[in-house]
Structures are given as C-alpha cells and as structure tokens.
C-alpha cells in the first residue's frame, strides 16, 4: 500500500472483561503530585538547577561523566547499551528516564525509596560518577554558577553540612526528572475511544495491535505485573532472565535491594525526608524481605518501550521480538519462583509474537510532552 493512509482495521470485538482490563491502562497522563519528601519538588528554580546538574560532568571523579552519559536525551534518556558504562562498566542496563514520579521504588533492585535517593546512588558508586558527599558539596560551594543555582532552588546558600548539600542535589535532580512524563500514545487514543464508545476511534487502531493487546490482557497474563496507566505495578518479578553478572557472581536483585535499603541513611524513614508526617514512607516501613526476592527485578513501565532497547535488567534481549520470544519459550525451571505460578511458557506463534510487538509499539508517545523546564525557561544562574 503506497497511499500512506492506513486501511481501517477490521472489527475485533473485545469481551466485556477484556475491555475492563484495557480501560485500567488509562487515562494518560495521570495527575502528578509534588513529592512531599522533597521540599523543592515542582519548583521551577529547582527544576532548572536539577537540569544543570544532570549535564554536569564535574559530579564525577574523572570530570568526564555526567548523568547524561548513560541517560542521553537523544536516545530516549538511555544509552542503547546492554550494561551501561560510566567511569567503568556497571552490572545493569540504564533505563529511560521518564514517568519516574509515578514509581514506588527506584533502581532495578528497588534499593531506593525516593527519586531523590535514587539520584544519589550514581554519585556514590565509583563505577558511575562516585563524587560522594564531600566532593559534591565542595563543588557546589566553590562554583559560582552552581552555588547561585543552589541558592535559588533552596532559598539559602550552601551551608557547611556536606550530607545536606549532597541530598539537596538529589532533590534538585528529582525536581527536574519528575517533569519528564511521556506524551500520549496511539494506545491512549484507542483506550479513550473504547471508554467513550467511539466506534470510529476504535477502528483507527491497527488490527495487529488489537490482536497483541488481546494477548497482553488475556492469555499472556502480562497485566498482572504490567498493570495500570504506566504499565507497571511498581513491584518486582523474576522474569526468568539469567542473573549472572560474570562467572561466579550473581546479581541478587530485589533481595540485595531490600538489604541495601535497610542500611541506607537516605531513605524516607531517615533525617533527610522533608515530610515530617512520613506520609509516603509506608512502603519502606512495611517492606518484607523474602528468599524469593532473589533474582527479582523491578517491573519496568512499558510506555516508550519500543525506544529503549535493549531490554531486561542487564540488557540481555536486543529487541522487543526477542522479549516476546523469551516469554513464549520461557524455561519455567529457571524461575526462582518458590512455588509461585505466574509465568508460564506461552508457546506463541510467530504471528502472535509479531502482534504483541505491534501492540507494544503503540505505547510510543506521538509527540514528546513539553516539559515544565522548557515552559519556565532556564532559570539557572549564568
């Protein structure tokens, strides 16, 4: 077909139960509320300061690596590598940085319970940036532009407490990153047409995507984990992916993440939470460590998933077709499921796998949303 106009998709009626499941993946975008644990969440001066910090290579010990090294804006805020390389190669894949404000846990292992704490992790890890609290605080105090940005964001000049300045950098970065919400995707138009009974709107959604969507909410059981408008339940799962980092060394995943969380001074239960009521700390207070957490990794959201290859926590799958094949032929013996029965070998045909990919591709935003930092201009000091 050379006309460039897609033919109307043949009718594919979803059952009432399928429609109910589909409707739960919207509407998009949901309201994003300021993070009460971060006193500068949503504040334009902090967003601008955070943006400047994101591209600041002096926050690495080599002076050559910034957040943007692994989270490149021109590559959907990831780097396209299986395992990322900061100052050295790390164990995991760099996820695209968007829709972070909707997350419950941060990092593939959920070792951080807030976006601001997550932003501190690469600054502490020598393989990534490794500048640490002292180095970061010295830089902000001594650099005129960064010092001015800090003052505008936080209402006071950087003080003598290195740890406080360090955490504030995480909070400014969080203020910037939480503005990154993906725009509406073709799936959202279909979902909303379904919600309002708009037959013409429904018909515009490609037939292959509809068939893939039916698999997603039905036989594939994908919605148990990839639930809700962001297509993640925010928790952790063993997807049957090998978690050997190298011979003799495994990535413990969520099991290690919870142990790190409990040792960290940068959690919602600690002194750096700006919310005296600890209103978002229930997850941290009640999280439970189990043996089955070993080999579990965070369930990623699927919006813009077609733009963020490679996939899985260590980038072991190059394409979405590989991921569909993985779930189709999954080796149930490899799962550390401790008797759980969620993942089952799907035995999808080649066409069904292609349909699933066609659906996932409709989760790509049509046009990136304008971010608030662009609306407010660059308020950082010069």
């Amino acid at each position: 077909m050379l006309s460039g106009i897609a033919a109307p998709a043949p009718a594919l009626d979803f059952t009432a139960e399928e429609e109910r499941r589909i409707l739960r993946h919207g509407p998009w975008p949901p309201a994003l509320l300021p993070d009460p644990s971060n006193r500068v969440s949503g504040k334009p001066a902090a967003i601008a300061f955070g943006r400047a910090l994101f591209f600041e290579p002096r926050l690495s010990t080599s002076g050559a690596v910034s957040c943007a090294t692994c989270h490149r804006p021109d590559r959907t805020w990831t780097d396209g590598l299986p395992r990322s390389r900061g100052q050295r190669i790390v164990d995991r894949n760099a996820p695209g940085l968007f829709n972070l404000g909707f997350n419950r846990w941060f990092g593939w292992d959920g070792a951080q319970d807030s976006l601001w704490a997550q932003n501190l992790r690469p600054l502490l890890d020598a393989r990534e940036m490794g500048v640490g609290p002292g180095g970061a605080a010295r830089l902000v105090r001594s650099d005129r532009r960064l010092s001015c940005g800090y003052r505008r964001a936080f209402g006071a000049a950087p003080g003598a407490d290195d740890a406080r300045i360090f955490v504030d950098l995480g909070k400014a970065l969080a203020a910037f990153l939480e503005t990154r919400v993906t725009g509406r995707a073709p799936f959202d138009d279909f979902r909303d047409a379904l919600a309002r009974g708009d037959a013409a709107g429904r018909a515009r959604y490609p037939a292959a995507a509809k068939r893939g969507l039916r698999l997603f909410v039905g036989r594939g059981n994908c919605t148990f984990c990839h639930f809700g408008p962001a297509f993640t339940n925010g928790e952790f799962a063993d997807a049957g992916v090998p978690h050997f980092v190298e011979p003799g060394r495994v990535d413990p995943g969520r099991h290690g993440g919870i142990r790190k969380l409990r040792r960290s001074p940068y959690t919602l239960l600690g002194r750096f939470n700006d919310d005296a009521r600890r209103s978002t700390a229930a997850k941290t207070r009640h999280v439970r460590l189990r043996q089955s957490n070993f080999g579990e990794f965070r369930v990623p959201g699927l919006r813009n998933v077609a733009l963020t290859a490679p996939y899985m926590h260590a980038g072991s799958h190059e394409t979405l077709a590989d991921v569909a094949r993985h779930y189709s032929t999954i080796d149930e013996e490899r799962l550390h499921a401790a008797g759980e029965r969620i993942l089952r070998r799907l035995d999808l045909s080649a066409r069904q796998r292609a349909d699933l990919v066609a659906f996932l591709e409709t989760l790509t935003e049509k046009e990136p949303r304008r971010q608030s930092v662009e609306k407010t201009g660059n308020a950082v000091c010069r």
Partner: protein
Amino acid sequence: MARWRLGGPVLAAALVLAVGQAAACPRPEGWTGGASIAGETWTAWWRSEPAPIPVGAHFSIRFHLCGPPVGRVGVRGWMPDHRHGMNYRPAVTLDGLSGKAEGLMFHMPGRWQLILHVRGAAGRDKLTAETVPE
C-alpha cells in the same frame, strides 16, 4: 472458613451464611460497610480503608472480633491462583477484640484472600475473606 466479597448483595449473603460456625457477630456500631467472616471459634467484621481495596496501593483494615478473648492477631494477604503473598508485612494493633492492620498491599489484579490468624486461650483460628481489588 467463609469467603465473601465486599458489596451489597454479596454482603447480605455473607451475613446469612456466616451464622452458625462461630459466635454471632453484630456489625460494629457506627460501621456502614464491611463484611463478616467466620472461623471455628471467632467471627469477625472487617472493612478496608480505602474501600474498595485498590490494586497496587497501600491500604489498611479495621476489624472487630466476636468470641472469646484474643491474645494476638496476624493479618496476611494471599493470591491463591498465583500462590504468593504480599510484598509487605502489615503491622497489627489490637485493642481488646478490635484492631487495625496497616501496610497491606495487593500488588496484582485478581482474586486475593485476606486472612486473619487469631490466637487466644481458646485456641487458634483462621478467618479467610475473599476479595478482588479494584
């Protein structure tokens, strides 16, 4: 063990069917919602906050037990079709026969069981309610 979903007609059926296994248990004063579950020794009324139970968000429950004195109550969630529990350990506070459990989360859509493990001088009991988070 009785299994009920929250809701008007289902709740009415629950009230009828729950009778006879354990002590009769009137709805706690001031409650407008909730459901009743019965074990061998104790019967309980429970309700969630918020109601209905959301998928993937923390919630708490209040409960009131009818029967002999209670020493300890444990609360857990279980997804029978998947054979897994919750990722969070709720904290239970008990005041006589009434209590509250905080920090629960049903992290997947589908059928869940809310289970009260009751202990007292009269023995142990397991009260199970079935519910589908919305």
